[in-house]
């Protein structure tokens, strides 16, 4: 990986920050993800599609910062230290590499 594709203007960055700072928005994201994504009018169609399809490779190629990508994976797959965050990390790596789920 490198910073070559990094694009600080990506709307997905603001999505992750808002989810991090707003528990109510996080709950809504779980229940009605589309409604939350609708709040970001500058989000490009391919950016939104990558989020909906859990395609982190595509999202990173569009310019997602990997640290915020990691946090997005935890909103989707789990954030607790003992289980959810490990699962989220495995699924993120699998999406980025195209390899089967990695066993740490």
């Amino acid at each position, binding site marked *: *990986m*490198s*910073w070559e594709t*990094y694009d*600080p*203007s990506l709307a997905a*960055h*603001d999505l*992750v*920050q808002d989810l*991090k*700072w707003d*528990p109510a928005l*996080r709950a809504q994201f779980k229940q009605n993800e589309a409604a939350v994504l609708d709040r970001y009018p500058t989000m490009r169609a391919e950016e939104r599609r990558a989020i909906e399809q859990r395609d982190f490779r595509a999202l990173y190629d569009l310019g997602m*910062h*990997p*640290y*915020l*990508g*990691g*946090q997005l*994976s*935890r909103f989707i797959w789990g*954030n*607790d*230290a*003992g289980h*959810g*965050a*490990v699962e989220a*990390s495995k699924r*993120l*790596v699998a999406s*980025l*590499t195209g390899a089967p789920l*990695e066993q*740490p």
Partner: protein
Amino acid sequence: MAEIVFAAGIPHAPAVVGLFEKAPDEARAVVAATFGAVARAMAAARPDVLLVFGNDHLTNSRISAYPDFIIGLADRHAGPHEWFKEWIGCRDWALPGDPEVARALFKGLTKRGFRLNAEAGPLKFDDNLSVPTVMTELDSTGIRVVPVLQNCTVPPFPDERRCYALGQAVAACIAEDMPAGLRVGLLGSGGLSHEPGGARYFKIDEAFDQHFLKLASQPDHAAFLREITIPRMEQAGLGGTAEVLSWFIVMGAIGERCGESFGYTGWPSFRCGIGGVVWDLTKEAA
């Protein structure tokens, strides 16, 4: 003239808290030895105030307006921030701040040519301060804390020489701007190799980490600055390994000193290399 009485560098990987019980014996032993040694050295040095340099994990600011440094001016610091609590798997904590020292640092670094933000209100703390606090029980010591959050992951960010120079300015502030008799501790919080959110999330660069710990423990900062560069850090893990820039600030402040480390583990599930250094300040800098 205030005095630096304690200096250490440690990682703040959240999994050393949340996955500690699941780790193999040898990995647990390194974690316990490292944080235990830091806690004992800090207690023995009796600092009045601890300046903690550690990166913000995109917790306080949007990426579109990301500061390189934020000094916490508050009289109390508490964490972890709500969303990071289950991620770290740690208890709540609170530390006394030191607004007077924080303001002196803000003013002193500004006049020495460093642009920093200062935050009078509560900062959100993630792994940066939470892990060192709970692993050393810092919140039971009564030591006042001034957090300095830094950017080492949103490019472009201050490089190793800029961070080292900032450390030299921190030393000048302590020596020239802070009250005589004040005992100051310095803690660098971050690293070692890891790639959070990247394709190499479970990969650790043990060769880099071992070399880094060796060089950081030796009083030869020319070699340290020559070999531990941003490109080498990014090679060892993009967006995460550069957290060791917090150590550069501490090393710039204390000058060339010998340090002691307490073992190393690269257990993959920590998703970060683990090792620390406590520097010996009893002898004059080389």
